[in-house]
């Protein structure tokens, strides 16, 4: 079949659709590759860098979500180096803002928490930065806590690509990057927000939540967002 390619992942031969990402192909083959910024159906951005895999012939690890399968590719999803790197990146994410699970609405159903535990990361060896960031509770239905945001941009993409509202974007740069509604106004004052809530469902942490939820009460339905995104055709690359 011309549309099928064969590749080897962790020593196993795997067939995949041409144009598919390594992440999708590997997951379809039952492999575990960690990731936080990826949602199937949304444009992959390669931001969290947890899905790095080794591709034979390329000296540096490659992000599985933005690397397209090629015939004859040889991939390792597990190695001592990858594990170390992934653990370090997870620690960087945990140390960046305020991820204190015990007082978080998403405690128990948080992708960041789950991924940390899957990677065997219980704490950060880097000092915690604990910036003092605002909480935007101006929206009638939802709340944005910047302290929990990992800048994965799932909300930005689902809002632009599925809802078409383009409410969210990232402002500033580097470690001072922040999620911003419209032109950095209050979310509640946003003229573009349709209050659809897809951003909240897509958010992997407690950064975006439904108002009124207490600790551990916020559960997300990211799969639904993914199904919606895929149903409308998704993005090919």
């Amino acid at each position, binding site marked *: 079949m011309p549309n099928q390619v064969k590749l080897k992942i962790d020593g196993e031969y795997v067939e995949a659709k041409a144009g598919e990402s390594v992440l999708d192909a590997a997951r379809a083959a039952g492999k575990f590759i960690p990731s936080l910024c990826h949602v199937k159906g949304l444009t992959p*951005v390669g931001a*969290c860098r947890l899905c790095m895999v080794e591709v034979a012939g390329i000296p540096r690890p490659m992000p599985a979500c933005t690397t397209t399968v090629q015939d004859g590719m040889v991939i390792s999803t597990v190695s001592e180096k990858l594990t170390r*790197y992934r653990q370090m990146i997870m620690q960087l994410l945990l140390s960046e803002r305020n991820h204190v699970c015990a007082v978080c609405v998403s405690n128990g159903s948080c992708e960041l928490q789950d991924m940390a535990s899957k990677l065997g990361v219980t704490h950060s060896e880097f*000092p915690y930065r604990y910036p003092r960031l605002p909480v935007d509770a101006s929206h009638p239905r939802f709340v944005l806590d910047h302290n929990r945001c*990992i800048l994965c941009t799932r909300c930005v993409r689902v809002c632009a690509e599925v809802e078409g509202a383009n409410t969210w974007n990232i402002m500033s740069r*580097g470690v001072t*990057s922040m999620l911003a509604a419209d032109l950095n106004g209050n979310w509640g004052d946003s003229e573009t927000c349709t209050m659809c809530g897809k951003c909240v469902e897509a958010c992997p942490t407690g950064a975006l939540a439904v108002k009124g939820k207490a600790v551990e009460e916020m559960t997300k339905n990211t799969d639904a967002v993914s199904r919606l995104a895929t149903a409308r055709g998704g993005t090919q690359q």
Partner: protein
Amino acid sequence: MKIRDLEALNSVRQQGLTKYKPARPRIAVGLGTCGIGNGAEDVYQAFTSAVHTLGADVQIDRVGCFGFCAEEPLVNIAIPGKPLVILNRVKPQEAERILTEVLAGTVDQARALCKIQSWDHLTGVVDFGEGFPDIPEWNAIDFYKGQKKIVLRNCGLIDPEDIEEYIAVGGYKALLRTLRNAEPERVIEELKTARLRGRGGAGFLVATKWESMRNAPEGQKYIICNADEGDPGAYMNRNEIESDPHNLIEGMIIGAYVMGASEGIVYVRAEYPLAVHRLEKAIAQAQAYGLLGEDILGSGFSFHLSLVEGAGAFVCGEETAMIASLEGRAGRPRPRPPYPSEQGLWGDPTDINNVETWYNVPVIVNNGGRWFAQTGTERSPGTKVFSLVGKIKNTGLVEVPLGTPLKTFVYDIGGGTGNGKAVKALQTGGPSGGCVPVDMFGTPVDYEALAQLGSIMGSGGMVVMDEDNCMVDVARYFVEFTHSESCGKCAPCRVGLDHCLRILNSVSEGRATEADRDALEQLGPMIRDNSLCGLGQSAPNPVLTTLRYFRHEFEDHIQEGNCAAGVCEELFLTPCENSCPLHMNIPRFIQLYKEDRLEDAFESVIMDNPLPASTGRVCQHPCDDRCRRAGIDDAVNMREIHRFIADSVYGTEMEESVLKRLLERKMPPSGKKVAVVGAGPTGLASSFYLALLGHEVTVYDENSEPGGMLRFALPEYRLPKAVVATEVDFIRRLGVEFVCNIRIGVDKTPQSLSKEFDSVFLALGTWEASPIDLPGVQCTGVYHALHFLDEVAHGKDLRVGQRVVVIGGGNAAVDSARTVARLGADVTVVYRRQRDDMPAIPEEVDEAAEEGVKFMFLAAPHRVISDGQGRVTAIEVQRTTLGEFGVTGRRRPVPTDEILRITCDSVILAIGERVDTVFTGGSSLDLNRDGTVKVDRYSAETNLHGVYAGGDLVTGASNVSNAMSHGKHVAEMIDERLMGENRFAALFGSYTYSDELPDEPVAGGRNSTPLLPPEERRKSFEEVMLGFSPDQVSHEAHRCLRCDVKDECRVGAAAE
């Protein structure tokens, strides 16, 4: 007027030549941003009004920059039939004089930088004329020698704002040919033959990129010129555009034609207003001449070029971020593939090349790929422009063939630091590059070789660093830059660099631990391997290379809280204190003296430096090199101040009173016994502190009296024996026992001592002469310098004869020569390099010359001639010339065939000293190959438990203050080990003194101590340097700027 064919182009060319090489004199002022910054605009105005005043028929023009930034403003003088002359550092007030000379058909030849008789623009040769024999040709002067101008072929010569001058030197000929022949594939073939690689830094083959663009399906395609030059210290692209904008336009039109693009964009930094202005003007001119727009040169091909100003984000130099920026989105990169040649601007195929890459295109089309590939190396042909900046004499833009070794940049072209300080490292590639240490300056500059060192070639920034640069601070600076320029998209770069910066800040503030350093070493490769774009992937390079090549500087900061370069302000009191091996609190004793508290001042001095009168005479005074007063006039003469203080106190009641104070401060007897071997500066310093710490100290020495080198190697006229005796006596009275005439290794051994004592400190000197392969060295009348000085100090009457030759250039050579002069002989010092290369203290060399010592430079000993009885009758020396630069910046002496014979009665060899290893007494002490003792870098302990070593015994021959600093440090280490706690700081008292400063610094230059007149010096061994008068010392003390008084305002790392 639209140009449509060769004939029309040629007629514009003729028109242009009448302006570029007019029939009347032309004065052209270099008006790049750098020139303007140095006042070139005023020079231009001065010439314009001078022409007006004198009513002269002279053409005044503006040109770009010829590259020699250190000599700006540059002015080109072209008198018809004569060479083009470049004047440097021209001042506005000189305009009238220069113009008058030009009208008389001449220039001041002594005032000129260089001349150009004929210039090959590579697209056409322009002959200016011959003459002015006294002015060197441009490529005969150091800065341009070794340069090859391909990219910069027109820069600084043509008027960048006049398209006709560009056409005059062969511009747009390549374009016309390309369009006429209508063979775009041939251009790609030529680029392939040329093996031109992208000049933005990554070095991707241009032909490959262009070919894939050409092969992309027809339709809308874009080409982009990346002129978002953002590396600190890099300004090649700015200068290229400012000086020769049409070259870029021509390269881009050719590229557009080859790749099938109809639109082009130049993305320029908004911080380059002059480049933007000149490029806009050039684009408008090109349009007017039918070179841009519809139906270019009548070929039917259309191409539109526009200019976009970047808003200042460094990351927009990354191609996908640049595309995002051009599309009106925030400048953040996206993953590749797809590459821009597949999906670029607005989703269409897009080619992005660096400014300099485009500049190489017309000349390759014109002269062929084979011609281009002759320059440079096999894998990296062609030239590259670098901006050579930092601690370098000849700053400027340097274009050299790829493969040129780094040392050529720094020493041949750059002329070294120009201030006598040693170059430490070269930073290439800006914040994405790395620091290459001096010992790797032999590396050729090409993409692969620099990558192997952990750096990159980058776009061409080269920052030279000297001993005053702290490498921790350098790493910190670049990470601060990339940290603030990171786009924030991917976690490793965004958060990883933040942690890196925090750690580097803590290192520079002395708060870091070894675990922090290890974390840096973990973070670096992780950020490099996992970041999304080139910015993050290369951001750790400055950290990783400094950690690799300058690890000891990190260790010093972390373990000792010491920043030897004197940059990390949190770690030291003042630059002078930091540079002092003994870390004397210099501002304190100066202030105490100013307050008339001589006793306090002396106590402060002697507690920091147990031999203040001796060091006050013979210290190498590194404090002078760092004194901030030198920024106003000259360094404060700190050494003479503490000499004065010591001389005023010794032998008076104040000495007794200070001694009493110290004895009161002395800690109660510890019951521990310490043996110190060697009563030289190292041993004396350690015994001073060990005694005050309450230990029972016995100092052994093989000589009849204590003092070591101070007593027996330094001649009486530099350091009187009486001064040494006074200082030794002071230490003795603190409770130190001196046992002389004991030779370690013979009478006692390190093992036997370590049985008798709780700790043993080996502090011997380097008394053994280094071996030399010199025929006749065994003859009677050949002396080794230290043995000679030692014998003289012991009062032996050496019959050196009437004529003596001293071989060497260090302090021992100069001391020997001056001693011989005092013995009444005629003396010549023979040194294989030049005077400025002599390691001896420069003042001592001057004084020696005053005393009649003769010097013969550039000569090395060849053989010693003797008579029948084996007595020296002459020495043959071989003339040397200075060859290539070594990596450390000194030219290597190369022997020639010329042999000279110098008749003499004695020869004194002062070519270095080493350790005499007899002292080991057969013990299992770990030694290095040169006989020095191996010790732990911080504890100074040898492999034998409780046996320490320091001073020359560890470092090899050094100087008094370095040796004493070892003694001081080892005393602290021994005490800490013996007592189980660090009690050292408790020894030192505190003083209250004024921190009031005058509004203006006290005026007046540096005071020097009066010297004995030369004629009297030769007659005796009387001390030469007489010391300050009270007026001098008072003025000198008031010159001190008191850098220890700091404002609350914190800058840099501490500002966070």
